């Protein structure tokens, strides 16, 4: 499928930027004319991915988070990347309710929510190097 549009943003891993990231990606996605529900799904998934970078990737230190979004005719592809500590066991991390940080009131539902709200989720990670989460969602345009 042809690429209609693409954008990349870099920002610091500060928790104030979670809302910023959601709004930016939702605004960009609105070019595909998604429904409000689809936009809410995208915002939720982006929020989870960015929060993971902040809490787990950089463990509340300051690093760069990169979001890339690609629009195709009826699909959005979103990459959320950090250069933090990486994930040792991706399978385990993706399990519902599993968290490496229960002491921080983490629910362990991040990946489960991303999987539920998007159509497809891919996780690539190298311990010590960083993580990329790639998410795909078909947009059933209102028109």
């Amino acid at each position, binding site marked *: 499928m042809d690429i209609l549009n693409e954008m990349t943003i870099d920002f610091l891993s500060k928790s104030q930027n*979670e809302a910023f990231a959601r709004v930016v990606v939702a605004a960009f996605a609105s070019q595909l004319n998604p429904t409000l529900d689809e936009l809410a799904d995208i915002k939720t998934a982006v*929020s989870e991915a960015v929060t993971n970078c902040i809490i787990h990737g950089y463990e509340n230190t300051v690093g760069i988070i990169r979001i890339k979004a690609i629009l195709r005719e009826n699909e959005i592809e979103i990459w959320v990347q950090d250069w933090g500590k990486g994930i040792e066991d991706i399978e385990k991390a993706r399990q519902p309710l599993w968290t490496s940080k229960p002491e921080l009131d983490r629910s362990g539902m991040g990946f489960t929510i991303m999987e539920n709200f998007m159509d497809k989720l891919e996780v690539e990670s190298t311990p010590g190097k960083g993580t990329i989460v790639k998410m795909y969602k078909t947009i059933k345009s209102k028109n």
Partner: protein
Amino acid sequence: MGVTFKAYNDILIVNLKGELDHHMARIVKEKLDEYLARQTFKKILFNFKYVNFMDSSGVGMLIGRYKHLQKIGGKMGAVNIGKQVKRIFEISGLFNIIPCYKDEIEASEKM
């Protein structure tokens, strides 16, 4: 964005306003724990009327408060849940531990 508290009979109503993500969840947790350190409540009711977004960080915050309440034999409830928040409640199984009520009056009767 913020959190305000109101005592209603023996229930502490926590009025949330904003998007309950990791950023806001930390603020709510801090302020609520601070409030509960001064005055004990066994029943806590979260009002979601002005929350149109929540993610797993909100879930974690709620479960954390629930665990604390469980230790003292307390209860938790929620009112005015919107569409997106409801989906998060469903996926994460929160309804099993945090019943949802029509309003404060129903909550005070059933909690």
